[in-house]
């Protein structure tokens, strides 16, 4: 039997054993061992492919409705397999510590470990099979396993609701995917991806329909805006490692699906590239706005997934446009940026979720409004979280910067015809810059309010920093985030095969594009390390005094800036996206007899708006129509703006 099939078998056996064997410790070890063996076996299979060898192929005989399943691991599949299984293994390791209290209290951990094994199995299936039915099977295993993993704490009604919300969304995505496959099956009479590819590369009116259907299905899986509404609930409800795996690893299958079918589709039409680019930019923009106002740390991190898959999709959009316009450099930079960013996102997003889990374990809450000063009680967790926060904010010299830097290069490609297309691409670069700036703001807020200052409410005394089983996954992810920033060629080696599946793409384009910035980043890293050590050493025995209170010396912890106050001005500017639910009972009369209450909670704008439109859509239109004549200054300003922009454009056009 080949190593690859052996890996699948071992995972399945491990899942059954974890269910049947007694003792949580044994179950945990079974899951870790089988996943470890499977990861090694998969690496044995994919290592030659990653090193530039020919794709690995095999045929798996299967029962009647599916028939023989062709297996094929090309550069793309190898890239996804390379990190999906090891990261799942780390998640399983983390689970031992995170669920520890529950498991010791007598909870049966068997199903949980079995489901983690099944998740790894679904990666093995989805990233290798070339048959639509087998693909759907793997897709469903991942979806159902993720749902069951999310509702670990099923006694809580909110958790059950979040789980069902997720299940419904993911099944809606499945319907759309099935519709696309049925269309393809109807036209080709086959279920093999190879046959799909032959059909899709011909000019056919249904090509566009299929592209859109697949796009929606994969966008739902990867939680793109506006298909993300399940995501904040699910991520807040799930155990930390499940959130990490869902956000970092499982839902990357959506992006894999897109790339797989982009390859089958061949050179895309121009509108497809623009659609993906705009859709990605919208997702990144909306996702990052949400991250600023959240008070639940895990919800915040969930929204940041929407942002980051958006950035990756912008890369794919640029790649598609470069493909259409036959600009190999642009295509390489676009797809390279997207692939690298999605991998880097998996690295730092898992890290951040693990750190959030460590906080939850220590003080039983992840509400930013209550936390503060945790850096002193959880110093290691704080350090790892800081690494992840700087990386996810896209700042040099860590790995988040690499993908964004490449994407900027793709957007500013010299080969594009001048005029409007180029202006549109530069405008997208401006959106990306805004996303980067807001991302930095949101992550500074998240880290600063959680770990710095003083706790805003009395917190339970933590039982010490995270135990080894939780600390090691964090440390490894943090090392990877730093390493991939300083040595981006490592990430480049992983995506090399995937990148070269796109005809005309050359890996050395990306390598050359990265070299100078990498060296500058290394220089910066050395300087920062030096400064860090010096400042640490110099400041150890210095004078201490309370924080300057601007002359006021009766400060209390309740007077610190809170998460809500930090985001207040920002929230007012982007009120359309940052809806807040207020529950208030204000004191009345001059001498109120009862004390008042005010509670604010950020709610998802899309969800909120759906209900608003369903409830009073007609009234809203009337409201707007009535308000415009009342505010002539606004209309005048809008007119002036349009006139100015049109004038500039006309002026630019005159030169032709």
């Amino acid at each position, binding site marked *: 039997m080949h190593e690859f099939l052996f890996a699948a078998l071992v995972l399945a056996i491990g899942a059954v054993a974890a269910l049947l064997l007694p003792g949580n410790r044994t179950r945990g070890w079974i899951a870790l061992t089988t996943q470890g063996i499977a990861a090694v076996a998969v690496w044995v299979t994919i290592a030659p492919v990653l090193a530039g060898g020919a794709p690995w192929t095999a045929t798996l005989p299967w029962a009647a409705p599916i028939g023989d399943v062709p297996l094929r691991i090309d550069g793309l599949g190898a890239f996804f397999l390379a990190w999906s299984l090891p990261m799942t293994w780390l998640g399983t390791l983390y689970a031992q510590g995170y669920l520890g209290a529950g498991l010791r209290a007598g909870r049966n951990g068997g199903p949980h470990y079995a489901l983690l094994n099944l998740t790894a199995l679904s990666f093995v299936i989805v990233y290798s099979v070339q048959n639509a039915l087998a693909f759907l099977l793997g897709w469903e295993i991942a979806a159902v396993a993720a749902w069951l993993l999310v509702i670990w704490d099923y006694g809580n009604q909110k958790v059950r609701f979040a789980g069902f919300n997720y299940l419904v969304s993911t099944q809606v995505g499945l319907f759309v995917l099935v519709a696309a496959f049925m269309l393809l099956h109807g036209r080709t009479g086959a279920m093999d991806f190879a046959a799909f590819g032959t059909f899709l590369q011909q000019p056919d009116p249904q090509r566009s329909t299929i592209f859109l259907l697949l796009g929606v299905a994969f966008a739902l899986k990867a939680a793109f805006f506006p298909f993300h509404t399940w995501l904040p609930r699910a991520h807040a409800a799930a155990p930390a490692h499940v959130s990490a795996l869902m956000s970092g690893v499982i839902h990357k299958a959506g992006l894999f699906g897109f790339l797989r079918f982009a390859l089958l589709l061949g050179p895309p039409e121009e509108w497809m590239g623009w659609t993906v680019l705009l859709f990605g930019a919208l997702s990144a923009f909306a996702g990052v706005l949400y991250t600023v106002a959240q008070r639940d740390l895990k919800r915040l991190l969930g929204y940041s997934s929407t942002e980051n898959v958006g950035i990756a999709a912008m890369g794919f959009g640029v790649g598609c446009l470069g493909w259409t316009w036959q600009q190999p450099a642009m295509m390489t930079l676009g797809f390279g940026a997207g692939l690298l960013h999605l991998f880097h996102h998996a690295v730092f997003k898992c890290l951040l979720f693990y750190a959030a889990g460590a906080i939850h374990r220590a003080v039983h809450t992840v509400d930013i409004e209550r936390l503060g000063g945790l850096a002193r009680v959880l110093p290691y967790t704080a350090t790892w979280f800081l690494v992840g926060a700087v990386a996810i904010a896209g*700042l040099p010299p860590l790995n988040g910067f690499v993908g964004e*830097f490449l994407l900027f290069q793709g957007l500013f490609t010299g080969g594009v015809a*001048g005029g409007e297309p180029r202006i549109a691409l530069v405008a997208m670069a401006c959106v990306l810059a805004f996303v980067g700036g807001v991302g930095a703001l949101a992550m500074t807020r998240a880290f600063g309010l959680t770990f710095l200052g003083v706790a805003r409410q009395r917190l339970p005394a933590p039982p010490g920093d995270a135990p080894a089983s939780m600390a090691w996954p964090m440390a490894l992810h943090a090392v990877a985030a730093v390493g991939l920033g300083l040595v981006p060629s490592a990430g480049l080696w992983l995506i090399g095969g995937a990148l070269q599946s796109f005809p005309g793409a050359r890996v050395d384009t990306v390598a050359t*594009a990265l070299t100078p910035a990498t060296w500058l980043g290394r220089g910066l890293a050395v300087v920062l390390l030096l400064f860090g050590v010096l400042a*640490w050493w110099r400041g150890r025995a210095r004078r201490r005094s309370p924080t300057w209170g601007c002359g006021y010396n009766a400060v209390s912890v309740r007077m*610190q*800036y809170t998460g809500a106050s930090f985001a*207040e001005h920002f929230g007012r500017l982007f009120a359309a996206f940052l809806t807040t639910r207020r529950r208030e009972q204000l004191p009345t009369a001059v001498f109120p007899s009862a004390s008042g209450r005010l509670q604010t909670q950020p709610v998802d704008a899309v969800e909120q708006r759906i209900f608003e439109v369903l409830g009073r859509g007609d009234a809203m239109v009337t409201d707007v129509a009535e308000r415009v004549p009342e505010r002539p200054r606004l209309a005048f300003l809008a007119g002036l703006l349009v006139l100015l922009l049109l004038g500039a454009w006309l002026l630019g056009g005159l030169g032709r």
Partner: protein
Amino acid sequence: MSLVGTLLALLLLPFLLIGIVQRTRSWWAGRRGPGLWQSAFDVQRLLRKQSVYSTTTTPLFRIAPWVFLASAVGSALLTPVLGLPPVLSFPFDFVWFLYAFGLGRVAIMLAALDTGSSFEGMGAAREGLFASLLEPVWFAAFGALFCLTDATSLAELLPAPITGLPAATVVAAVALALLVAVQVESARVPVDDPATHLELTMIHEVQVLDHSGPDLAAIQIGSALKLFIGASLLVALLHPCPAAPAPWPQLVAAGMLIGVAVLIGTIESLVARLQLRMVPWYIGAALLLGTVGLLATAWRGEGGR
């Protein structure tokens, strides 16, 4: 030779630039004002002092000022100053330039939050908001220049050739957008007032209330450097004769640098600072200018290439 000149300029001129801005303000106010090198003396004095740290702070607070300084130096190395080529130049160095600014900003914001002071948190929130609104302005400005010149490094983007009315529109719009960007990044009036007496209304200065001694010196050097970099970008953009024989471009650039400092000082003297809620609209106007510059490059289409 030119490398030594660039490094010397980066070392000395930031303080002189601040001196000129201060002198201009004093002149408008009818005072004599401090000496031109006063800010350098201040930094020297701070470097001799000892730092005091708040009891709330973590080691992050001690490192942050130096991260800020390092990132400012990192950006400065990429900037063409005084008509000389930059120390380092590579394709898309402007992206690195702006992201290094971002790193320094995040360090200062975290240090501010580290103190647990509500004033400093307030400053950090404002800084983050205004800076994130400013990012697209920078990219629109550099993007318009990119569409105009097809170049991708700061050294080649600046100065932009003015070949006709559309190109002149682009350069003018970009110059104005950059002026606003400099005012926001280096915390000058009308966005922020470094000399106000009330912590409630400050942005940059309020974040560094708790820093003292050498740490404060690092922040002041970094801030001076950022102002100097910004002014140098403006000078390089509008430089009329970058290709003239040796001493002339440098002399012209020096004269223009003084001009920019006087302009900044004059604006500070004649304009009141904006209300905080109006600052986003001010940045929005700069974004509009950047967009105008970008749209005005539409002529470089198929016919204009």
